[in-house]
């Protein structure tokens, strides 16, 4: 699902940018001008302007056909660790809660 850029404005705190890799569907997080597999290694955008700019840049890059469906989501710091605000993104970053042997949580992805 491609979320419209305006959705960024529904998020009020710090945000991160995510997408799926085209060839295998793997979940990606924005870091610099590229992408990483681990949420912990991704960039956190503290203000809406920088988040919107990152999303706009990513949307423009979809023509490279390396990733699809970029969108922003809200994160917060809990005990010094960045984590998504919504359960949906927590599960997306880790893997199914009912199969902890699968997804990023299983592979200890940290980059």
């Amino acid at each position, binding site marked *: 699902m491609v979320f419209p850029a305006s959705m960024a404005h529904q998020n009020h705190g710090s945000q991160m940018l995510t997408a799926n890799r085209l060839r295998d569907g793997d979940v990606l997080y924005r870091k610099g001008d590229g992408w990483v597999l681990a949420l912990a290694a991704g960039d956190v955008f503290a203000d809406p302007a920088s988040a919107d700019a990152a999303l706009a840049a990513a949307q423009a890059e979809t023509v490279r*056909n390396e990733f699809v469906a970029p969108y922003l989501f809200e994160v917060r710091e809990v005990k010094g660790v960045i984590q998504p605000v919504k359960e949906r993104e927590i599960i997306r970053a880790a893997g199914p809660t009912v199969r902890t042997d699968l997804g990023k949580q299983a592979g200890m992805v940290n980059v």
Partner: protein
Amino acid sequence: MSEVAPNMYRYDEFDARFVAERTAQFKLQVERRLKGELTEDQFKPLRLMNGLYLQLHAYMLRVAVPYGTISSKQMRMLAHIARKYDKGYGHFTTRQNIQYNWPKLVDVPDILSDLASVEMHAIQTSGNCIRNVTADHFAGASADEIEDPRPLAEIIRQWSSLHPEFVFLPRKFKIAVSGAPQDRAALKYHDMAVEIVKNDAGRTGYKVLVGGGMGRTPYIAQVLGEFVEKEDILAFLEAAMRVYNEQGRRDNIYKARIKILTNALGIEEMRRQVQREFAEIKQGGNLQLPQDELDRITAYFAPPNFDTGLPDAIPDAGKDFANWVKTNVHAHRAPGYAIATITLKTPGQVPGDATSAQMETIAELMDTYSVGEVRVTHEQNLVLPHVRKKDLPAIYARLKELDFASANAGLITDIIACPGLDYCDLANARSIPIAQRIALKFADLDRQHEIGELKIKISGCINACGHHHAGHIGILGVDKKGVEFYQLQLGGSGAEDASIGEIMGPGFTEHEIADAVERVVNVYIKTRQPGERFLDTYRRLGMAPFKDAAYEKEAA
């Protein structure tokens, strides 16, 4: 043991060519997408037409299982695909299909090619088209059946596959067929359904229902045609589809299903318009179903050569086995035979999941004991349709090794649950962990059997893939400011006594919901009258006593 070829539809030259061409076409489309010759906006409808979604963690491929019938050869291929291309398991769905949660886009053309080699595909498992036709999972075996619904389901499959008028409908369209008075196919919750009936003269024909559905606006289907002659069925269905295609709303996705149109027009006006269209189609004469074609398709589903002179008694093999027989074995039409349900619902398990190894062992059971055939049920179980009663202890023993021998078919732990937020991009809340918690809470088999028939169905969002509206106890997961909550609904049924569950009130947290269900069940145990199921007691007493109990602890 060698592979047994069951009596089921086999592709003819047209089917084989059509699937081969479609597989080759999608391979090229994937190549063009990866090269950048197609944008995602251009590619997305193409992949959806081939059952390929992008979900929460990865792509998801939904494979069509027409009317839930799988041969052992196909089951082995499904196991192979899970092992080679996915993460070693598949998920049987409430549409009698199987889906894989982790395929890579680059592998999908090879997966479709492997599927085509066993006469399977993923066409029309997504998109605004007529989806995979479902049927009674006891078809051709049940003792209460008027006629096997699979020949008609196959004819509808052929008629609706890439039908040029119905490729871009206002919304998806689901059809189910049943040939028995006991509704095991949830007919009244379908866009359209066909029930095989006999009229007063003793002639067999079709009762056609329209306008049922779940989702955010649930409706029970109404009778569109009380008795449609066999030769007229395709003309009649096509007439209904034309009325829907022309007048179904395309401006609002939430009002686009035929249930909305049916209720907006009113059933009388719907009937009038369909009859008018039907008369026109019939006059053209192109859509009459010739008896010889019906006979030709029916011949594919001829009953197997049942052994005669078999003992009709089920052997004694202990208490656990007897419990399993009580819930998971059903009456067969042939003496000495039975229908055996394999519930993929061992308490704590993910409902509907099976590993490659489990699928392969089930294929072995199919070949050894059930003429090479299994059925997928809309309740996410599997059915061995034709087993000798004398073989039941051996089947049970093998199922125990697989951890699929729970004696719980139709009981409180035989829970339907959609993939929910653990996998689904649309979900608001998780379903599977709630199913697991409830199943573990009620895992004691004596207690389950004491409670008796009780169907719990859980959906992780209002789209209702977990059929929560039809649950005796339905559970709907919702998101409240990023936190999962679960609403209880009571009194739903997907059977011949279909009803829509009534919402109880405010939701429960994920930690409260299983206890709330237990308090509701306890009210039933205390207040039931002899012979009453949970549903009967609810219908007699209404919501109040159950609601009081469910919120009791929270209020204290």
